[in-house]
């Protein structure tokens, strides 16, 4: 944590030094001080827009995780689904979300709907594939054991495969948390009336580069906060997951 702060402080110093040395005009690269000033003076609208973008990210994350997990379970439980849905899953990734963004805006409007849909689409795939992989890779011995114990195939899925696949689902969710901001911001760039992405575009149009940087800073903070809270949540929810990085005995 402290090292991270020191690194960030070093970067800011470098940035400030670069601005001093090159005397670059503020509309190309504003000095850190100017960005901080923008953060303070525009705090009201920054907070307001951040709230909207944050809500889009969270809703998209929840929806995408839910749909992705449901997709993985469907693929696992229903043989026929594999033939029909697996190609669909791949196509959903072959078409870049950026390409569908204008369509989503057209259909769902300039409001939050289209951004939530975009975030959901971006998150759906990593969650579905990670969880599906985990479900498929259950130790065959555990499944044999469940069978000799007289478990139904539904019980085998819910009480063996699903808990055994939770660490894999967690990996998918971590990726999802990291890419969630992309969906929301792309959605706002294509067409929006609010949100940090909209604010950045708006500021860019008026050469308010300092405001752009301020919005970017808030966005980065939000993305970090999202990732770390998802990570902490998952760590608490799956305490049996081996994690050599955080075990007290391992060398750092």
């Amino acid at each position, binding site marked *: 944590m402290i090292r991270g702060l020191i690194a960030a402080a070093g970067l800011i110093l470098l940035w400030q030094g670069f601005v001093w040395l090159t005397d670059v005009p503020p509309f190309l690269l504003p000095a850190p001080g100017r960005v901080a000033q923008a953060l303070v003076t525009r705090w009201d609208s920054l907070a307001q827009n951040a709230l909207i973008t944050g809500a889009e990210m969270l809703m998209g994350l929840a929806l995408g995780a839910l749909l992705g997990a449901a997709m993985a379970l469907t693929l696992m439980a229903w043989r026929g689904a594999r033939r029909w849905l697996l190609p669909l899953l791949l196509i959903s990734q072959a078409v870049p979300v950026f390409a569908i963004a204008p369509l989503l805006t057209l259909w769902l409007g300039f409001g939050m709907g289209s951004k939530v849909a975009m975030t959901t689409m971006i998150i759906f795939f990593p969650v579905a594939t990670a969880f599906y992989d985990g479900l498929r890779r259950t*130790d065959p*011995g*555990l499944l*044999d*054991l*469940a*069978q*000799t*114990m*007289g*478990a139904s195939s539904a*019980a*085998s899925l819910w*009480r*063996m495969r699903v*808990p*055994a696949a*939770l660490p894999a689902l967690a990996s998918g969710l971590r990726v999802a948390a990291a890419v969630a901001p992309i969906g929301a911001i792309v959605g706002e760039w294509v067409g929006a009336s609010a949100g940090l992405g909209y604010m950045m575009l708006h500021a860019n149009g008026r050469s308010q580069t300092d405001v752009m940087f301020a919005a970017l800073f808030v966005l980065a903070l939000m993305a970090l906060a999202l990732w770390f809270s998802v990570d902490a949540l998952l760590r608490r929810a*799956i*305490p*049996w997951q*081996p994690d050599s990085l955080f075990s007290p005995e391992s060398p750092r």
Partner: protein
Amino acid sequence: MPAKGTVSVLASPAPGFRIVLPEGLSLGGSPVLGVLDLRVPGGRCTALLGPSGSGKSTLLRLVAGLLARPGAVVAEDGAPVAGRIAYMAQQDLLVPWRDGLGNVVMGAHVRGEAPDLARARALLREVGLAEADSKKRPAQLSGGMRQRVALARTLMEDRPIVLMDEPFSAVDAPTRHRLQGLAARLLTGRTVLLVTHDPLEALRLADRILVLRGTPARPQDYPVPDGAAPRPASDPALLAAQAALLESLAEAGP
């Protein structure tokens, strides 16, 4: 030797069963087991030895109902074998998300039944696991402790037929020795089919020893030393028999 506790005593005598493979058994097109008509006596321990890849585990999986071959396994009392079997594998197969106690009652859990926790605790005590250890997850337990939990889980199922696939091969020799004695005591009266690599284990525990030889494999009887299981490992007759069986197995190997 009668079982000491009350938690692992069988209500009715355990049935024997027959494995009948009139055409042998192939997996994925390649023959694994030859023509077979094998009787596993009720209430006794039958050990199955043989080199790796000789089809020992396949035979066990067949009895466990994990390979769909209808009619291949027939209990001597006429009732189906399915549902009367407990299975213990080489790996402990403890699930990492439940503690020791939770793993012992795993059978009830996957069947959606209410677990008999009092009996599970009694069994854990019987296999020598401390109360505190039964609250730990498998990752926090040693290999020997995990295998004790797996043994308790197998006994918890309370089935007349118990299938064991190299159950103690993953633990160190002294622990294996202790667990063998424990298993022999707690499994008294059940029909046990024990697959093992270890001649000493077979000679200590079994009432009947079968060695699988050839490709595809066929079982042959091997004489068992006198005395009731678990036979003491210090018995010179047992040690001599171990050496002889080892030689015999080495010949059977590839």
